[in-house]
């Protein structure tokens, strides 16, 4: 397959950045978007030019490293996939494809298509954990967790931390990301002791990092590679309210 590409190039954070045009020829329909970029980069290097920088690692949709805005859509025009999972067979031969970095106030651009997503780590550091030191754990089966609860917690815990929810949100909110962790730990008995402090600390950090507010557009759920449900945002809101009223 052949494609015309418009790709965002930006030397560093200070550079203004611009689109540049490339052509991709003879791409296998089974190749992923990133494998197409590999081909372009080999050609650029062979021609003595600076290759296009983009983040990636596992290339199977689990590490959360990759993330491009493709034809205006976060991780591409479809739902529930990561950029590395998106195969070229989903496009038409001869299409023009526009590739940009995730854009959000909280994700400054480092170079080309690479952004800094450390704000998400700092939210986790604020409270996305259960305080249990190594060696303090009780026997695992001592605390039963009904299957239904464990499954629901797992639905939330699947978050790969890619930031698609932020990039796709008109307000640049990280609510779905925060909600996934708050919800997972609020559901499980292990997380109950700290649920109040956790939700307050994580929300506070989220605000501090410059993420926007949630106005229930639900764009995030559609774009989440794991399809994490906005119901977790509802649970987060309940957690936040009860934390505020000082009840347990």
């Amino acid at each position, binding site marked *: 397959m052949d494609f015309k590409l418009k790709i965002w190039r930006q030397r560093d954070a200070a550079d203004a950045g611009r689109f540049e045009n490339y052509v991709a020829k003879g791409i296998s329909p089974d190749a992923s978007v990133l494998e197409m970029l590999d081909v372009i980069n080999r050609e650029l290097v062979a021609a003595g030019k600076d290759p296009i920088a983009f983040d990636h690692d596992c290339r199977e949709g689990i590490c959360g490293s990759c993330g491009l805005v493709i034809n205006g859509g976060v991780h591409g025009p479809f739902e529930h996939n990561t950029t590395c999972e998106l195969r070229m067979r989903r496009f038409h031969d001869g299409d023009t494809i526009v590739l940009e970095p995730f854009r959000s106030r909280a994700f400054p651009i480092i170079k080309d298509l690479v952004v800094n997503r450390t704000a998400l780590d700092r939210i986790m550091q604020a409270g996305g954990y259960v305080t249990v030191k190594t060696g303090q754990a009780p026997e695992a089966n001592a605390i039963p967790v009904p299957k239904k609860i464990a499954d629901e917690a*797992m639905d939330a815990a699947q978050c790969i931390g890619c930031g698609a929810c932020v990039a796709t949100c008109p307000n640049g909110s990280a609510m779905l990301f925060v909600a996934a962790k708050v919800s997972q730990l609020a559901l499980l008995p292990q997380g109950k002791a700290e649920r109040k402090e956790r939700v307050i600390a994580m929300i506070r950090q989220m605000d501090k990092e410059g993420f926007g507010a949630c106005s229930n557009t639900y764009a995030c759920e559609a774009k989440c590679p794991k399809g994490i449900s906005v119901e977790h945002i509802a649970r987060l809101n309940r957690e936040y309210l009860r934390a505020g009223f000082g009840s347990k």
Partner: protein
Amino acid sequence: MKLDPKVPSGPIEKRWSQRKFDMKLVNPSNRRKYTVIIVGTGLAGSAAAATLAEQGYKVESFSFHESPRRAHSIAAQGGINAAKNYVYDGDSVFRLFHDTVKGGDYRARESNVYRLAEVSGNIIDQCAAQGVPFAREYGGSLDTRSFGGAQLSRTFYARGQTGQQLLLGAYSALSRNIRAGGVTFHGRKEMVDLVVVDGRARGIVVRDLVTGELSTHLGHAVILATGGYGNVFYLSTNALASNASAIMKAWRKGAYLANPCYTQIHPTCIPVAGDYQSKLTLMSESLRNDGRIWVPRKGGDARSPDRIPEEDRDYYLERLYPSFGNLVPRDVASRRAKEMCDNGFGVGKTGRAVYLDFAEAIGRMGREEMQEKYGNLMDMYQEITDEDPYKVPMRIYPAMHYTMGGLWVDYQLQSTIPGLFVAGEANFSDHGANRLGASALMQGLADGYFVLPATIPDYLARTKFESVKADASEVTRVAEDAKLGIEKLMSVNGTTPVDAFHRRLGHVMWEKVGMAREKKDLEEAIEEIRRIRKDLWKDLKVTGSADDLNAEIERAARVADFIDLGELLASDALHREESCGGHFRVEHQTAEGEAKRDDEAFSYAAAWQYKGEGQAPELHKDELAFEYEIPTSRNYK
């Protein structure tokens, strides 16, 4: 130097407790005075960083990823073993020990393996307490399943994303300790060399991957938890950035590298389809619980699989190994798949694939339950191949997956450089010549949560540290050398991008040092690898600058190290005139085509010492003694 594995004596079930008791402790108020440098934030690195910080040490943690959570451990699918015996099917610490020693084809140290089995249950407790959402039964207790090489159900899992959930558990512990100030995390920093002062590991030099800047970090002990070297094969199931540079730098500084030829080829991966492919995707071994592997009885049978009736199918694993069937260990399953394809029974366009069929399982449990158990794998398969595995059998083929070899360590997980410790897939310690499924996660977390946090304090307490000045020539020279190394790569100024050299290397490794190895091929491989090295230093082309984010430089440096490792791997394979586990020498097999070990001659771990550029490495033998397990030929019939 004579290798001292520091293995405890006495009854095996008391060895670890006795050793823990014999170890020296550091007074809590003194712990802040010690800095431990940890490279890697996979399961092993994150677990160690969190635990040592909880104990009160100052931890400096490094990763080339931006976030600790991106480590390759995140991709593990199937599960983690533990001898909990929750289902009461005859499991015990001793049984897990037995299975692991046998599964490793009697090439691992008994004491290490026993310790691993002994702490396995604590790992599950720890992870459950962190909020890892393990699969549960209706009553709320933990669910398990079975994995290759075991006849019982001891594998704990979180859907098909066990590695993700365990890593996020360790990451949450790490995050908590970053917040509390015990750990300082340095992301997008790649270790480019090790600082050794007066014979002790005292620090590392790292390159900032965004600015290209080199900086030196000093401490009292260094832990490498940098993962495996499977990408020496170019195509593997590993994440693309996984590399061997950290262990190769340590090797050149005097740490011995053990058993590099013990590599694991995983039987169930999506086959190679074309040149564009940047990696091979694993379909978890857990699928072998419910999937049946077969090929048509008639070579070249072009009928679509659903048109091939039962009597025309050969379920060759069930036929050859009636008691383990589709659950034989990985090395056996991989070799048999290759053999079927070599003999012309392979399926698909390339003829290099066999079927993994779920029709029977779907009939038995229904599509919904199938989806619940393996949904993400089925989706992944469909996304990649454009075929629906609920309707047509998967086509699978073996691919490079895991490396049992790594830096040599003693029972304390210390390398031959005092103060340099190695954990997780980067060391060689527990799996012998073949790792059982679901045991890498167990080992990484055992090393990180339970072993290093006992052995590092002992080292710190016993060592009298001289203060090391950042401007001492022994220290500054390391960064200067690293700078020269990068300039050397940039200045070759040839015409060929690094990817081409990596592909060439991978091709030699797969064809000649892969599933079946032969003297003549190995000798040729070594020659060819040397040519690749020569060509790289003559014709490599790296574009862009060394002062900003430049994946080409990162890659060039990694491939240069892979070339050296590839040669060592092939030499190790050539020297080991026997077949064992993942190392299969065509010359050494039984009449039925099973691996033939030579315990008389090769019951040792081969630890290789670097002797200088262009010099042959020196072999040191770490002899294995079996007191509890009597090496027999592995029989999965």
